[in-house]
């Protein structure tokens, strides 16, 4: 999968992915489930990729078996995803034609499997040979020749064809077909049932008590027992006693005031602190899917965090680096989680959000081209620092090497982005007091660190000791 990402043009990619393996093995499956389209013009790189594939499947190569013709649809699926999905889909025209039942449709044209072998392994030569259908195809698809796949064996192609003829059924989704709302209500119903039963039991108990009391009274009345009501009334009422006890009044007043003040203070201090602020965004962008499930590096999209004071909301062309090929959301292999379904986040919902992106960036899926009609997305800003506070991302991200999650929390688990930290000055300062300056290998710090640590008699300087608490460092 990693090669797939490398293939993207653009500076960011080179920056963010050098030396980083963004897609570990275990997550491969997830990504492969997504539909992919890509690159027409990067044949050379694809060739390189094919080489990799060649190495991977060298075993298969040697054990090539001509007789195989039925093909294994399951193997075919994985081969399809690896080699074909960048340009082909089963049921949708992408860079190349839709491939569902391709063999059958080619048979109508009078082309057999041998032709397919030849075409897949080296399509330009087929075109060059003057094959009528090949040339028709070539012209129909903007004269973009299909990448030759000489490494694919006939058996592999058979497998792929088997897959295109009858794709294996999707793994059974647990109750996935049940609309989300119903599932939610059923879960809620059971809770409510238990609660209702409990309430019923409680009400019955109360009633029982009341009836017992009534019965006892009747019995007492019948027996002529006089209740000692009057006697009790002669005692001073408790509130009067309370009022008369001035000390008690004073103490409780004090307690009340202090408690009140505590809560008022607490309330006041949270005015303007928007911890947990999770506004609804114009496009439901899930950090969980991107940073969590697909393990995309934060700074791939928020690239200016490395060099600028702002982390930068990625421009839409960055989104399109991947979403040019990923036009539908295939979700987890296990299907949407209960929670997602409860919130109506089905695969279709996510696919709909991708369509919103296409609309904004002006991407026409049917022609696979930009229309030029774009409209910037008006994201709602989540982290709002006041104007008078200067914060520089690069200082923290590049110089200090602070993880994004330190301040922004477990973003990779956030379905909806929210403000994780309070972003108050106290919170900043606390961190500056506790965090050591990362001086290793930084020539800038060499002298000042040596001198300052000697002065303070410490081994590691905190940001505060380095001057990170001075007003003017953040307020100017």
């Amino acid at each position, binding site marked *: 999968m990693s090669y797939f990402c490398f293939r993207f043009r653009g500076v960011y990619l080179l920056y963010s992915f050098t030396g980083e393996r963004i897609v570990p093995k275990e997550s491969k499956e997830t990504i492969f489930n997504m539909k992919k389209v890509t690159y027409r013009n990067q044949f050379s790189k694809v060739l390189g990729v094919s080489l990799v594939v060649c190495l991977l499947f060298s075993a298969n190569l040697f054990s090539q078996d001509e007789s195989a013709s039925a093909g294994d649809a399951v193997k075919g699926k994985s081969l399809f995803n690896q080699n074909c999905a960048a340009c082909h889909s089963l049921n949708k025209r992408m860079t190349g034609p839709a491939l569902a039942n391709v063999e059958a449709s080619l048979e109508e044209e009078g082309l057999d499997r041998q032709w397919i072998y030849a075409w897949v392994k080296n399509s330009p030569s087929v075109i060059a040979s003057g094959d009528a259908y090949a040339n028709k195809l070539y012209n129909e698809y903007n004269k973009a020749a299909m990448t030759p796949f000489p490494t694919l064996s006939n058996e592999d192609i058979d497998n792929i064809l088997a897959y295109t003829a009858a794709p294996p059924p999707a793994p059974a989704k647990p109750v996935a077909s049940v609309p989300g709302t119903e599932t939610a209500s059923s879960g809620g119903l059971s809770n409510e049932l238990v609660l209702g039963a409990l309430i019923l039991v409680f009400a019955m108990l109360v009633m029982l008590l009341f009836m017992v009391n009534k019965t006892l009274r009747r019995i007492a009345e019948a027996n002529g027992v006089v209740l000692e009501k009057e006697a009790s009334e002669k005692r001073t009422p408790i509130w009067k006693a309370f009022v008369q006890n001035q000390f008690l009044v004073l103490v409780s007043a004090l307690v009340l005031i202090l408690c009140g003040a505590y809560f008022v203070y607490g309330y006041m201090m949270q005015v303007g602190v928007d911890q947990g602020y999770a506004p609804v965004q114009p496009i439901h962008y899930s950090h969980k899917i991107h940073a969590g499930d697909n393990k995309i590096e934060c700074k791939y999209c928020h690239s200016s965090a490395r060099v600028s004071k702002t982390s930068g909301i*990625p421009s839409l*062309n960055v989104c399109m680096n991947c979403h040019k090929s990923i036009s539908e959301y295939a979700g987890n292999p296990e299907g949407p989680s209960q929670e997602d379904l409860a919130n109506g986040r089905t695969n279709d919902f996510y696919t709909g959000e991708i369509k919103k992106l296409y609309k904004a960036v002006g991407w026409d899926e049917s022609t696979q081209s930009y229309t030029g009609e774009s409209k910037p997305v008006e994201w709602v800003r989540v982290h709002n620092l006041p104007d008078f506070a200067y914060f520089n991302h690069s200082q923290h991200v590049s110089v200090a090497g602070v993880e994004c999650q330190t301040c922004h929390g477990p973003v990779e688990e956030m379905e909806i982005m929210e403000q994780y930290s309070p972003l108050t000055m106290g919170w900043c300062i606390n961190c500056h007091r506790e965090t050591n300056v990362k001086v290793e290998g930084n020539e800038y710090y060499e002298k000042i660190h040596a001198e*300052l640590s000697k002065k303070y008699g410490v081994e590691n300087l905190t940001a505060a000791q380095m001057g990170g608490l*001075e007003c003017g460092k953040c307020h*100017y």
Partner: protein
Amino acid sequence: MASNKKYWKSEAELNPNDSIVETLRHNEFVQDIPVDEFLGDKDNLASSSTNRRDFLKYVGFSTAAATLAACEGPVTKSIPYVVQPESIIPGVANYYATTIANGFDFASVLIRTREGRPISVLNNTDSKTNGSANARVNASVLNLYDSTRLQGPTLNGEAIEWNDLDNAVKAKLGSLKGSGKQIALLTQTYASPSTSRLIAEFKNTYGSNVNHVTYDAISEEAALNAFEKRKGIRALADYDFSKAEVIVSFGADFLGDWQGGGFDAGYSKGRIPQKGKMSKHIQFEANMSLSGANADNRIPLKPSEQKVALAKLYAKLNNSSVGGELSESVNSALDLAVAKIKKAGSKAVVVTGLDDEDAQSVVLAINEMLGSDAFNADQPILTRQGDVKAVNALIDAMKSGRVGAIFIDGVNPVYSLPNAVDFEEGLKNVSLSVNFSTNENETTAVSQYVAAASHYLESWGDVEIKKGHFALTQPTIKELFDTRQLQSSLLQWMGSDKSYYEYIKETWSSSVLGESEWNQALHDGFYVKSQPSSVEELVDVALAPVVEETTAVVPIASSLRALANASNSEMELTLYSKTGMGDGQMANNPWLQEFPDPITRVSWDNYVTVSKVDADKLGFVNENVANGGLDGSYAKITVNGVSVDRVPVIIQPGQAVGSIGLSFGYGKKAGMKAEMQTGVNAYPLYQNFSNVQSVSIEKSEGNHEFACVQLHKTLMGRGDIIKETTLEIFNTKDAEEWNVQPVVSLDHQEVAATSVDLWDSFDRTIGHHFNLSIDLNACTGCGACVIACHAENNVPVVGKDEVRKSRDMHWLRIDRYYSSEDTFEEDNVKKDEFDGLTGDKGSLGGFGELEHPASNPQVAFQPVMCQHCNHAPCETVCPVAATSHGRQGQNHMAYNRCVGTRYCANNCPYKVRRFNWFLYNNNDEFDYHMNNDLGKMVINPDVTVRSRGVMEKCSMCMQMTQKTILDAKRDGRVIKDGEFQTACSAACSSGAMIFGDVNDKHSKVAELKESDRMYHLLEHVGTKPNVFYHVKVRNTEEV
């Protein structure tokens, strides 16, 4: 003692039977207040739908609603690019080298852009052409965001499309082709190789009746003619004052805008005493100019007498004599100048600013005769091309109907022509007039088509500033509006499908660049053509004077005679351009309007400068009124029957008796915001394009209210504020004598003031410790730093009324002091010799006398900003600790913490703290750039825009030092000297301000701090500032 004086308020009181007076004796108002009309009608009150309780409900509700609404944070949107340009990273500035060439100011500059919008102008320090960004160039970025800019082409005031304009123009041009009628182009000086080529091609397309007339609002006609006659090229000689040991100037304000300006950096280089040497500067002038203020000897002289003096100087240098009478003192000054020049030989240079061809010729002759090193006629300056004769011929042609179409670009002749009426009349006879302008102005008002022109930051262009020194203008932002530059339009009208960019590239690759790379030139913003083989040229230079002298003897003789016989009139007016306003094309710029003139310290005005003697004679007064503001009389100035009335009068020390001065650039009305319509227009007095006029002046009615930021003119003998000495003493005596360290009494012992301290000192030896060095010798007072500070730090503009109340917000001011005696030294002596309270040497009268500047005072400039005291008095008095000190030496100001007690400002001995009396942004009361969305684009996003009720001050450009540090940290490297800059030090091209880290022992600033000349302002107060000054050394003998 009771007084019998009776004060009366109106003449009605003179009539004892007046009923009104009688009524007023008992009642406050003559008539009853008509309250009964609405309170008496009970029915009306009862029927009102809003009763008292309702009213209270509304009040309660709205208060509660407002309170609740305030608890909810606003929703902020973040809108990223759809496709982010590769070069733009949000939050990171980009720099583009470009060139301003607006016809008056020509300079290579760097434009800093943030998120694609230009926010400030910086010096292009790589550029090898003289002329760095002055105050106006620094402020020019704000004109880009002028909300009154033209947003598209118009026809008689109605908006039209460019297509319509193009079609109309093409049709007209087609019909004029071959007809006898002129197609006139009236433009500014471009000095642009591409534009010249373009206009030549335009001529080819539309025939020889195309007439290109170049017009400079402020003409250098005399100098151009003189130079052309001698050298055969219409240009101006270039001067490098750093190579001059003796500079003698006759009315040339070469530190101002004389012959295009840009000579100050070279001048300052020679003014810093090195190895006991510095240049000697003698100035003969009428107005007190920047150059005069910086001169070692300044001789106030009427322009007619300057001519005589110049003739005599030439004669004396040749050991001959000419006629003409001069006073004894002037003669002796001349003798001194002659002696100095003779001694210096080729190290001397003579310049003149007299608009007189004879004077200019004589000066050229003198410099050639001397073989002056500073004088360069081989690479002359090309930035003034205006041709008065051609302009006048054009006006005549227009009046007689011989002009079929006129295209005007970059000039505003109806405003700036002395004979504007003729021009307007002529324009009526022209059937097609197209005016390229960025703003509405006097000329667009009478033009048919107004073509909205692009600002230079949106345009392509090239310019040959000096011969062989080329520079490129590139757009730093896409056109904000539907605008187009003239050159693109010409290409369009010629039917070319080339863009002007391609056209320039073509010109450059064919005739400018040679082997060099276009991209490199564009990146650098300039290109210097290598000179032809140097040996030949050296021979040329050596031979030239000899050859010239033989050929030029005859004309010089007649010139000399003309000069010596210059007619002396009773009152002579010298017109000049103000540092802040130039020729007036940027009058709509609030930064420049609020920029205090370096000499008079008056902002938002121009005025006539009059000597004290003449003022007394004519009855002019300047007085400070009770609220501290400066008031002045009005004058009426008449030249040849043309008069300008209600000109405010400033009594100017140093103004030559019998002369007055008035600046161009003010009094614009058309297309200007009401607040910016300041001053009077001096161009009607600019008869025959001569800056010297014989005038009559009389007092007129009324009192003018000035917005003057410095009311106290003299130092009153406080020699420790501006320490100065003479070159002789500086060279011969110990530093303790001329740079006296203050002492205080401790235990009845005199000890150094710095040794006594209330506070413990912090250890500042670790890390960076920023210091700013200001060399009073190098500072010319040009004010570029003031505007640069404005731009960098979002300093608000407060307007004339507020400035008058001393509420100006400049973080950096340049104090200007006059001596009360002839020199500052004499002031010091006088003060020291005070004896007793009264009497001849009594301090009571003596201090009173010291308040008045001398008639020809010495002048000193001192830039003062927050001194960033290590023991800051402001910090100790802040009740909320809003101002505190950092280890790096900067005095921090946390705006969000400030509650506005203003204790700090009261306790600051330097008076550098500025209080936000009002909200200056988003406030209709202060309708300047911060009150509209367009103007706000100039705001530096790294600096907080302050709110009402907080104190602010110079931060020593904390945002810049922090950025430098951060960049180094990110790169993991040590910071080199010179990397740390403040806005002012970066803007200072004269080398007066040097900023850096004194803990870096190899830095320039650390070296300067060890200099003998170093002193701190008000050292005896014990504030231990991080800004230090260098003692001013004057190259004078007499002190």
